[in-house]
């Protein structure tokens, strides 16, 4: 460190003033970027505090304290006999339960690919790598056609099951298993007589856990973002996830400005918990695997 500070000090003779200036300007650019990213969310926050009338008349970025927020929340929760609450629960089922299961399935597959030598390993791995390049949305229509042949469309399963396969999650789990599960520990476990499934469950999974948080978050967003799958699979409004529900609400409300505040409040209630969750979980992100380890 002492060596590092010396040249900076030495350079100061020529450029201390400009470099301080640059420090401010680098920050300024980031502030502009941060405002661009945060302002739409803040606008949604202030807009949801307004009554339907105020939305069209008052200045956009000024919040209102005339009870608009409470009214909007009541309207939202009362909409179609409280269907919004169902949407929240459905989203928790699809994205929450779905992601947990995906992580478990992917971790088992990644662990097997990383820690065992077996016939077909290379082939399976190549198929999974190819699968990484196929976005889930491209498969939604053939998945629908096939599931309709077995009369499964319209059910929770029709959205849940296709969401459970994520080649990218398997790939990442393999990277994490390679990096964090030492073969020696597994060998020691085998000598102690532990079964392979038990070794995976109580040793492998535990060691991979920090990495699996990242897999969880990435997959959660992937399911949460896959709008087309539930959009085509599910026709019953009570089974919609939030994304499809809010879309249908807007579709109905586009010609009906009185519904605007309900849609805006719905958007806020849908994203705010997730934004908070992401900010809190940020430090558990292990994206170094995405950026550095992707060469395999």
């Amino acid at each position, binding site marked *: 460190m002492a060596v*590092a500070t010396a*040249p900076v000090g030495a350079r100061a003779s020529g450029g201390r003033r400009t*470099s301080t200036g*640059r420090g401010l300007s*680098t*920050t300024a*650019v*980031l*502030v502009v*970027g*941060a405002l661009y*990213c*945060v302002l739409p*969310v803040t606008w949604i926050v202030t*807009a949801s505090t307004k009554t339907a009338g105020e939305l*069209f008349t008052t*200045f*956009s*970025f000024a919040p209102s304290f005339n009870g608009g927020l409470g009214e909007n929340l009541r309207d939202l929760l009362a909409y179609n006999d409280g269907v919004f609450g169902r949407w929240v629960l459905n989203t928790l089922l699809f994205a929450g339960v779905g992601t947990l299961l995906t992580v478990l399935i992917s971790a*088992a597959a990644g662990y*097997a690919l990383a820690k065992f030598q*077996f016939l077909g390993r290379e082939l*399976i791995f190549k*198929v999974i790598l190819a699968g990484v*390049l*196929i*976005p889930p*949305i491209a498969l939604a*229509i*053939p998945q629908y*056609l*096939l599931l309709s042949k077995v009369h499964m469309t319209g059910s929770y399963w029709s959205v849940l*099951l296709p969401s459970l*396969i994520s080649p990218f999650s398997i790939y990442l789990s393999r990277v994490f298993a390679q990096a964090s599960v030492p073969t020696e520990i597994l060998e020691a476990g*085998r*000598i102690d007589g532990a*079964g*392979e*499934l038990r070794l995976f469950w109580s040793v492998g999974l535990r060691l991979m856990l920090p990495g699996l948080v990242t897999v969880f978050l990435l997959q959660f967003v992937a399911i*949460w973002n896959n*709008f*087309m799958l539930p959009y*085509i699979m599910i026709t019953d409004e009570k089974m919609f996830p939030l*994304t499809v529900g*809010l*879309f249908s609400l*807007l*579709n109905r409300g586009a010609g009906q*400005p009185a519904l*605007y505040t309900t849609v805006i409040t719905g*958007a806020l209630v849908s994203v705010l918990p*997730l*934004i908070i969750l*992401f900010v809190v979980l940020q430090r558990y*992100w292990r994206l*170094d695997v*995405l*950026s550095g380890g*992707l*060469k395999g």
Partner: protein
Amino acid sequence: MRTVESMAAEVGRPEAPVPGVRRTRRRLNAKTAPYVLLAPALALLTAFMLIPIGYSVWLSFRTVKVADGSLLGRRTEQAAGLSNYTTVLTDRVFWEAMGRMVVYGVIVVVIMFGLALTFALLLDHPRTRAAGLWRTSIFIPYAVPGVIASLMWGFIYLPAVSPIVSAFEALGLAPPDFLGSGTVLFSTANIAIWGGTGFNMIILYTALRAIPSEIYEAARIDGCSDLRIAFSIKIPMIAPAMVMTMIFALIAMIQVYNEPTALSTLSHAITSTWMPMMKIYSDAFVLNNTFLAAAESVLLALLTLGVSLGVMRATRRFQGVED
């Protein structure tokens, strides 16, 4: 290795009542374990990826003939050869959607990566203040799904409630029309850029943090400016991460669907065949021509494959030169 293991098992587990039985069970287990662990993933992969892909390809070579040409005629499925593909490839609407998608994709990828790289380099700059706050703020849109982001931006674009329009009006200027046919492509691109910049920035930033700082110190001693260090050291070193994320972004662009579909509720300029994926949806579910939709899906998948292989090959050559 396995023999050592099983011998060790016998030695290590003297309390096992019948060591022989236990050993055979264990040996079987070690051999079958990877297949057992992979079984759920492979079953799902087969059912929800491989079979749907195969089925799409099959459908793309099929068609339905209506017996006597009337609406009530008996419909029979039959082989179609390449006729679905020729229909698609001579369809002006399909090419318009493809052209729009390419323009949209180039706009989004260029601006998004320009911003993501700029922000990542600035965050990595030692004199930047409160970097954590800006990083978190720019990352926030990642938590907002495309459809909801489009609803939010849709209202910001919508003249009756738009804060931007009211600001223009307050200043006595003519407000821009975000949802008109000339501008809505850019308005849609903005939503994708807004949603994707933070995530790509974080990946590039993580890659930058992994570069050992000794390299910069050496460069500084040699009198390199920050800008020079960014262009000659940092960007080449994070190039692999950038290529990876760019491939994912390009794939997502080819399949763009959520944002324009959500925005179409507020803009008449977005038709039901505005983007290739929207046309596929409308062919499959509105026109009920799953065969044509399948052919279009196969063409999009081939384009996806071509783009990702092309990017990988191009950069491999680039990296070969760098080394």
